[in-house]
Every structure is written in structure tokens, then in C-alpha cells.
């Protein structure tokens, strides 16, 4: 019985590792987007500079290709969604249908103790899972605020699972912006998986 369980575990782990390695290795290959005219896009906003830089990028991107757009910011961030709304208001109406603004629970507030952070992080992950299942974006844009960690984690898991309709087409862009150097290690790790540098 024990032998059976151990063999099962070894096989499952090996398959999982192989799958993860495959997903990572395929990550920089260009997608053939022949069928779709537009791709639903999730934009992750972080405090201050992150949002400013993301809006700066969005302002030079083709709005009809990246639509509908879903903006996500942390629940305690009052400015970012406001800035996104102002940005969307300035755009023409084309592609504005279906634009949505959402908030996600923060994994950890500045100054929060690490013990309670475990609980809030799990909450954030659960919320991210819920939002991702609801939206199922084709493209995820983020530039490294803490808000994007649960979202990218869930997205990456979806990609590894590749259940049809669940993330098999998803592309995650973690952009190294002007202050890339100061990002945390886990972001750097994620960034090394799928990064497009400017």
C-alpha cells in the first residue's frame, strides 16, 4: 500500500514539474493570434508610480485590440481605480463596452504583522481565484505591485493546469518598469519566467 502511494506521488510530482518546466519554456514563444480581433485584458494597478507607469503604457496601446479591459486594484487603494476611470473617460467609446473596475483584497498591508499576513494572503488568493474564474482574461498586464502576486500566482496555476477555457491561452506580462531593480525576489522570479522588457 505504502509502495503504491509513494509511486503515485513520485509520478504525480514528476508530471507536475515537467508541466511547469514546459509552460515556462514556452513562455517566450509568440502566440499565433490569427482568429481573434481583440483580447480581453486584465490590468493590475498598484499604488502611485505603478499605476502611473501602467497608464503611460496603455495610452500608447491599441484600445480595440486590448478589450474588454478589466482594471484591478487593492481594496485599500483609493487612487488607482480613480486614475484608471479618468483614463478610460478620455478614450473614445470604441472598446469601452465592458470595461470594468474591480478591487481585490490585499495580501498584506504595510506594517502588518507576518502572522496575520498568512490569513490575509490566503484570503487574497481566494479572491484572486474567484476574480480570475469570472473574468478569464486572455492577457494580464502588471508591473510588479504586491497586488499582482496572488493574481499572477493563480494565472500561472491555470496555465499549468491548462483545463480548456481556463488559462490555456493566457499570456501574462510582468513588465520591468523604471524601478524594476527594487522589486522583491518573488516578483523577479516571476518576471524571469515571462517578461517583456521595454
Amino acid at each position, binding site marked *: 500500500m505504502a509502495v503504491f502511494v509513494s509511486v503515485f506521488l513520485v509520478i504525480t510530482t514528476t508530471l507536475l514539474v515537467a508541466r511547469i518546466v514546459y509552460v515556462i519554456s514556452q513562455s517566450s514563444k509568440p502566440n499565433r493570434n490569427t482568429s481573434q480581433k481583440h483580447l480581453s485584458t486584465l490590468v493590475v494597478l498598484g499604488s*502611485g508610480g505603478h499605476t502611473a507607469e501602467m497608464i503611460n503604457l496603455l495610452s500608447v496601446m491599441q484600445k480595440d*485590440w486590448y478589450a474588454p479591459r478589466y482594471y484591478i486594484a487593492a481594496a485599500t487603494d483609493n487612487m488607482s481605480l480613480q486614475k484608471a476611470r479618468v483614463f478610460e473617460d478620455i478614450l473614445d467609446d470604441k472598446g469601452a463596452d465592458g470595461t470594468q473596475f474591480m478591487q481585490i483584497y490585499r495580501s498584506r498591508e504595510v506594517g502588518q504583522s507576518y502572522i496575520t499576513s498568512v490569513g490575509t494572503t490566503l484570503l487574497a488568493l481566494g479572491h484572486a481565484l474567484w476574480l480570475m474564474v469570472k473574468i478569464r482574461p486572455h492577457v494580464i498586464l502588471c508591473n510588479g505591485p504586491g497586488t499582482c502576486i496572488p493574481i499572477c500566482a493563480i494565472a500561472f496555476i491555470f496555465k499549468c493546469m491548462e483545463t480548456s477555457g481556463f488559462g490555456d491561452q493566457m499570456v501574462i506580462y510582468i513588465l520591468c518598469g523604471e524601478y524594476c531593480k527594487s522589486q522583491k525576489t518573488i516578483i523577479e522570479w516571476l518576471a524571469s519566467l515571462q517578461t517583456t522588457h*521595454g
Partner: protein
Amino acid sequence: MDNVNNDFESKRIVFVTVGTTSFDSLVKTVDSDQVKEALLEKGYTHLVIQMGRGSYIPKKSSGGEDGSLVVDYFTFSSSIADYLRSASLVISHAGSGSIFETLRLAKPLIVVVNEDLMDNHQSELAEELAERKHLFCGRPQTLCEVIKSSLNVDIIVPYEPGDANPVAKLINKHLGFPAD
């Protein structure tokens, strides 16, 4: 130099901002006699403090005949762009939004790092930009020193904002959209 013909021209405003944070140690330091003296000596006339969520309240002052600094403060503003534009010197907390907004306006900037924050990726950013000579960097305790001895606007290298177009093109190409 008293009695100015052109009031606007002789005004040299120092604008202090803490963004949406609480940064009492910076506001206290800026409101101290030593720092105000140091700013006066450098030729500044007005001090405007955006104090955010802090609890320390600075002392307002209308300046006056003794030539002291005119001091005013407020908590928040929906946009500090106008304050930044009219400033001759900006002293800011290390938030990247405030930093880049100031740099884009090409204003001399002293960034003060808040050591009470647990994770300090903010200080890394400030130090990196200071190394590239885009701004001056310090802590509340060293602010007076920075103003007195290091504040030399001639060594500042203007900041060139990054162009997002190459990034957009790369993403488009990667996703299979037609290259522009």
C-alpha cells in the same frame, strides 16, 4: 532685499509632500528652526507643506519683517501638480508616484526616506535615482545637512521619462497582432 516690485518673481517656494502617507518625522524636521534657517539661507522664501495623514501640525507663519519663511500647510489635494509647478524646490517622501511626477516637471528634488516603513523598496528606488544624479536623497535626520551642503542644482541630470512605445510594440508582436 525687501519691498519687491514683482512679487511673483521673488517668491522661491519649497513644496513638501508626503503623498497619502503619514510621515510626521519629515514634517517635524521641515518645521524645525534649523531647516527653516537653512532654506532661508539658500534663498527660499516660502514653505508649503502637504502633510497627508500625519498628526503633527506645522506652525503657520506669514513671514514678516524679520524675513522669516512664510509657512503654510494642508493635508491633501486631489492634484499637487500646480504646487509642484510653482515650486523651486521639492522635498518629498520616497513614493514613486511623487518622485516621478516631480522629475517629469524637472524640479530640483530632495527625497526623504521614511525609515518606519517595514519594507523599504522605496529607499532602493530613491538611492538608485540619487546615484544617477536625478535627485538628492536623505533621511529626516540628515535633511538639514543635505540642504546646507549637498544642495547644488547644477549637478542634477535631467530625467528622461521612459518611452512606452517599444514595450507596446513588443507586446503586440508577441500576441500576434499586426506589426504597426
